[in-house]
């Protein structure tokens, strides 16, 4: 037996006790934050000023920034437009691996476009991109990281949406999974900068085409609102010593703060802007905003964070459409709310193991044709590949 359950068993009591104690601590803090929300609900200017002050003294500050809605705002779901377009893109990738016979990278993006109210079958697209061999290596000659590939993938997703965005029936909404904000810690800073510029260019294109874009964050763990209120609780001295590594309201996340407010399915919170280092690159119409949305069912609240650019956030009608459409999309998935269209984009994009192998075989064949020697698979990869299931005809 790989795990010695007796050893686990011995520690289980203490483990549970610790969890309980921690939960109680957090509950106390949460009460504090909730009270602060009540207290500062309408004191938006004070909060904005405090963030502005803190931005100068705290490195890597990351928090919510109120815009024009009180903190405890609850906006119920408006009615769904009769006809609209909803699109989603999702990507998957084959990361370059030193265990493989050859180094290669494929980014596969799945797209789906559904015109609700039309009765038409949604359209499905896939875009598969084999990255240039040259782009697989950093200037230092090692293979690019998985994070870099992910960055390129996120860019491809938006590009793909922009490519499809002509002649759309409006209103039109496009979505991707995860934040709109690119938040990576890549070593390849130069490459990141280049990619980010391209990314912003695409967002701009989307804006020009009138295609609303959003990033859907399921089960968000962030505590942007808690961090905002921490700023007002701390003295200026404390603020100087503030570090996001040692927080006053640690463990109190936004979802737990808002769950009691957004009780009805379709309810959204106030819209906040995001203050962060990266978000500073998203300027003007593209400035990053977010709100929380209850995509759950009656009696079972489930909050998602929705990230949108400023041009959408500023137009409450557009936000209303988005709110209604997202609620419907998540509702389609029944007891496990998640935007249907996003799930479908993911399904389309997924690269299966056989496909992976097939592409690899194609590349190896091309290398052979050109007389390029091909490494053997690593033994680790060889044994992984052995485990394949087959089915047999049984009448």
């Amino acid at each position: 037996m790989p795990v010695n359950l007796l050893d686990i068993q011995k520690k289980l009591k203490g483990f549970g006790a610790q969890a309980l104690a921690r939960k109680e601590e957090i509950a106390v803090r949460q009460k504090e934050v909730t009270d602060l929300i009540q207290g500062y609900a309408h004191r938006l200017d004070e909060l904005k000023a405090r963030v502005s002050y803190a931005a100068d003294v705290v490195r890597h500050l990351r928090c919510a920034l109120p815009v024009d809605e009180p903190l405890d705002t609850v906006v119920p779901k408006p009615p769904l437009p009769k006809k609209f377009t909803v699109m989603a893109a999702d990507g998957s990738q084959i990361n370059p691996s030193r265990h493989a016979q050859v180094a290669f990278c494929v980014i596969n993006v799945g797209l789906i476009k559904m015109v609700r109210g039309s009765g038409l079958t949604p359209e499905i697209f896939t875009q598969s991109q084999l990255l240039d061999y040259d782009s697989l290596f950093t200037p230092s000659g090692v293979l690019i990281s998985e994070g870099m590939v992910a960055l390129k993938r996120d860019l491809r997703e938006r590009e793909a949406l922009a490519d499809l965005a002509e002649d759309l029936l409006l209103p039109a909404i496009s979505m991707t999974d995860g934040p709109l904000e690119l938040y990576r810690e890549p070593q390849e800073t130069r490459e990141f900068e280049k990619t980010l510029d391209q990314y912003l260019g695409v967002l701009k294109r989307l804006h020009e085409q009138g295609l609303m874009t959003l990033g859907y964050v399921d089960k968000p763990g962030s505590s942007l609102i808690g961090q905002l209120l921490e700023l007002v609780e701390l003295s200026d001295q404390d603020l100087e010593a503030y570090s996001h590594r040692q927080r006053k309201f640690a463990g109190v996340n936004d979802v737990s703060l808002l769950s009691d407010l957004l009780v009805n399915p379709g309810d959204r919170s106030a819209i906040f802007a995001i203050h962060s280092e990266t978000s500073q690159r998203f300027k003007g119409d593209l400035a990053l905003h977010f709100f929380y949305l209850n995509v759950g069912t009656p009696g079972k609240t489930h909050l998602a964070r929705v990230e949108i650019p400023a041009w959408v956030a500023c137009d409450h009608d557009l936000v209303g459409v988005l709110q209604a459409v997202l609620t419907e999309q998540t509702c389609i998935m029944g007891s496990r709310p998640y935007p249907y269209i996003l799930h479908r984009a993911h399904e389309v994009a997924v690269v299966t193991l056989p496909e992976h192998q097939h592409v690899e075989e194609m590349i190896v064949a091309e290398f052979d044709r050109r007389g390029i020697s091909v490494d053997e698979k690593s033994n680790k990869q060889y044994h992984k590949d052995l485990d394949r299931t087959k089915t047999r005809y049984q009448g």
Partner: protein
Amino acid sequence: MSEIEIGRLLRSGTTGFVVGCKVNQLNAPSFGAMVRVPLEAQYQVYGVIYDIHIEDDGLVRQLITAQDVPEEVLKDNRENRNVPVEIGVLALGYEQGGRIFHLLPPRPPLSLDAIFLCSSGEVAHFTGEGRFGYFRHILRDRDKPIEELLAAHLYQARAAQVDAGNEAWYQMAVGELITLMRDDYQGLIKTLSAVSEI
């Protein structure tokens, strides 16, 4: 020859094969319909659909928990998604050099071979040849719903034979079935009850 392709072969054996197809291809084949798999020049395998199997998956299971499923989503699932639809086909015989044999095919079809629905003329040609030898293959497998299968097959083949001007085929077919099954009272009565509903 009909060119209605209903799918491609997933797996096969001497006695039959399984065809995979998309849900939107599914309006063509029906239970009891005859299909053919052209394998090479002058050689094709004939079979009858005894099972159409639509597998579920996580998404479908999830979708049924929703209160309303928009029409576009239904269509997306049926037409776009790679939901495995499996069509079970029982081998009935083959055609070689223009001659029909009601024997099991010497070689089964191979993976991804295209499967076509038989046209009325092809059904009449296959079923009118010989003396209903292919009933053997259907009757062999008592695990399958052979009563229903026979009824569905007779219904479709009768129409094809009537088109071909052979009005007497149906009576002879039922007569042959009775001869083959008369030692199995229960089975025969069940089959005739099913046939009587067509």
